[in-house]
């Protein structure tokens, strides 16, 4: 066990956990930030994606000891009152079915738009292909990313 100081959603947290504990389980079990989801545990589905600086990273395979000083953003910290252009677009397009994967989808899209505010269809599909949606909401995910992009231009 060791102490780690984490910067998450603009706040500082201190946790005492084993160094190999994935960030995902620190968020969920120790900090009560359950918006980041567990689904595969091997970085295949994207349900656990968070932003580390500006990159979408699967938190399920990132040991807490490797997070360091980097700023972590989870779905809870994407915006103060749930009005990030992506969150609004996700509502406008009514993207979700079961909804379980959608936080990870939104975080993957957030990383894309930070680097490329005006992606093409192809660029959206490239960026989102690492996120599985078992309900098959892919058309609406793409539509919502493009809608959010059109609003932040």
């Amino acid at each position: 066990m060791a102490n780690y100081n984490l910067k998450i959603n603009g706040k500082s947290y201190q946790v005492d956990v084993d160094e190999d504990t994935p960030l995902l389980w620190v968020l969920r079990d120790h900090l009560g930030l359950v918006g980041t989801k567990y689904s595969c545990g091997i970085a295949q589905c994207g349900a656990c994606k968070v932003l580390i600086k500006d990159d979408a990273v699967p938190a399920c395979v990132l040991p807490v000891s490797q997070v360091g000083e980097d700023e972590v953003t989870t779905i809870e910290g994407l915006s103060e009152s749930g009005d990030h252009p992506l969150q609004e677009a996700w509502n406008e397009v009514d993207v979700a079915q079961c909804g379980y994967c959608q936080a990870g989808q939104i975080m993957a899209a957030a990383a894309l738009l930070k680097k490329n505010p005006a992606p093409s269809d192809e660029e959206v599909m490239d960026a989102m292909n690492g996120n599985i949606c078992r309900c098959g909401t892919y058309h609406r995910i793409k539509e919502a990313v493009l809608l959010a992009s059109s609003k932040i231009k």
Partner: protein
Amino acid sequence: MKTLKTNRRDFLKIAATAGGGLLLGFHFTRCDSPSKMKVVTDEELMAQAVNYNSYLSISPDGHIVIFSPNPELGQNIKTSFPMIVAEELDADWSKVRVMQAFLDGEKYDRQVTGGSGAMPHSWERLRKAGATARMMLMEAAAKRLDVDISELSTEKGQVLHSGSKKKISYGDLAKDAAQLEVPEDVPLKKVKDFKIIGTPIKNVDNKAMFTGKPLFGLDIYKEGMMNAMVKRPPFGMKIKSVDDEEAKKVSGVTEIFTFGDNVAIVGISTWPLMKAKQKLKVEYEPKNGKLESSEMHNQLFTDLMKNGKAQVMRKDGNVNSAFRGAAKVVSAEYQCPFLSHSPMEPMNFYAHVKADGVELVGPTQTPDRARSAAAEIAGVDVEKVSVEMTRLGGGFGRRLRADFVEEAVSISKKIGAPVKVTWSREDDITGGAYRPAVRYRFEAALDKDNKMIGYKLRGVGMNAGNCTRENNFPSGSVDNLLIESIEYKSDLTTNAWRAPITNFLAFAEQSFLDEVAEAAGKDPVQFRYELLDRAKNKPVGEIHYDIDRMRGVIELVADKCGWGQKNGVGQGLSVYFSHRSYVAQVAEVRMEQGNPVLERIYAATDCGIVVNPTGADQQVRGGMVDGMGHAMFTNMTFRDGAPTQKNFDSYRLIRMKEVPEIEVHFVDNEIDPTGLGEPALPPTGGAISNAIYWATGKRLRNQPFIEQEELKEYKIGQRA
């Protein structure tokens, strides 16, 4: 207006505080409501709301609380059910607060998510719940204004008096109206007067889902709660020995014990359990000497197809003489693998076995089954078990079972503390229960005029029950028909998997009908029309589908896709009736640089009245993506009683780049609505396989397509 007798059982007067909602302690009215508005919590609202019936409470502040009794797993019932109550109430939708009801056998029946059955079951009940309350509100207004009720009307949460132009809000009337006698007969609206039904209402959980609020079973954390994971045996095996020495050394693990052939690992948080599970050494031995493998299953299919004792499911005419006298005989075999349901949220459940009962919280499609299972294990009466349904991160039939509930209850009972059992993804994929593997043999006899005079279907399924649907099309349209089913009792646990049986049968049947159409030299659309005409004009035996509605969806999809009018495009038709709805699809495949590219699939659906167009579009589209993904890519093979695919690196699910354009159309009618969670899935595989055939000449008879010899020469998969 249509008048109905109310069912008293649905309208038991219950105390306002009896509630029954999932009180999570936070709530957003709706995503598009002004964010600065002070939001009343669910608890505050329930403290003042006045109860009308099992589905509805009205608060003096104007809020309309609607309880949604069925588990929500993505089928959008938590939005579409309340829409129906709100419609007949004439509520202002922006004032509606939806709460998930707990399991309550007194207030509700059929609190189940399965079989696409919720909508047909509840349509009238929900309408009456709204209409009855509306009538009571009007009576209260009539008394207060001292006018005749016939002078009153309602609109958007208000009672209006035509003469005086006076308006009274429902909130204002809530307490008075609730004192009145519940009316026996209530008029229901005409379809043309619907204001909420038929409009696209957004998912009521959007805001909570998109901001990461705790909605799902895995998000449950309670005071004093322990976590647990379970190591389960491969199919057909039992524990020989357990060595937990290394596993126990993992810090954070508090207890390891065996129950049945399972080993439970208990601790304070999840990660140490995952580590300990890797270190846990369990030796297994076969229960009866043989362990199942895919090779064994294939051999069984061959043997049983040839010599198995079949159950005759339907027999019309005399197939033997029809086939003897046939000018042409077409026959083919089709096969599909086992499949895991693999919802994105792995199985999990919270249980707290107390001295006086059991508290259950979690994602289940059958809360009633969860309750009975818990009562039995804990040794208490079912009345002592409470079940709170969280949102389900997908289900697809997997959560109809209660195995994960039983584990949570067994562990809580043993450790004397509340516990949440979490399955890893590997547990989920390797732990059953699967879509059964099935092989079908079809045979068709054509006479010299190329009319289908004989049809045989023989199915062999692994724990599939009846693997046919003997009364489905084309039954009723062929003079001589024989449908037979053979079941092999396998060690592998199987279960209903979205659109049970038809999820593969429809592919096989619709592909085979195209094979027959080709042998008969007929256009696939015309060939099906011919059969439907036959069923209509001279039905053979019983007909269990509506011929006109079936033809209607073919006509609509053929019109939308421009059937037969596109050059260089292989168009594949598939049409199926399942779970009370009719869906026809046409897939289009174009050859690009020598490779078949699936460009688009059109769907025409007849589910009666479309309650929520945005939700309905989602169900059809999602069902098609699901049907396509599993037909194209997903395989599950077995060795030594265990699946060889254990996680999403080898168990392949469809991704964004693999999905074609989809166009969704609905038949416009006023028939009472039927469900949509399943019916759009079955036709998709057949539409794709038929389109691939007409584009390439390669006939696909086994799933997944991507692994078949017929496609080896092509590059298939992601769009350019």
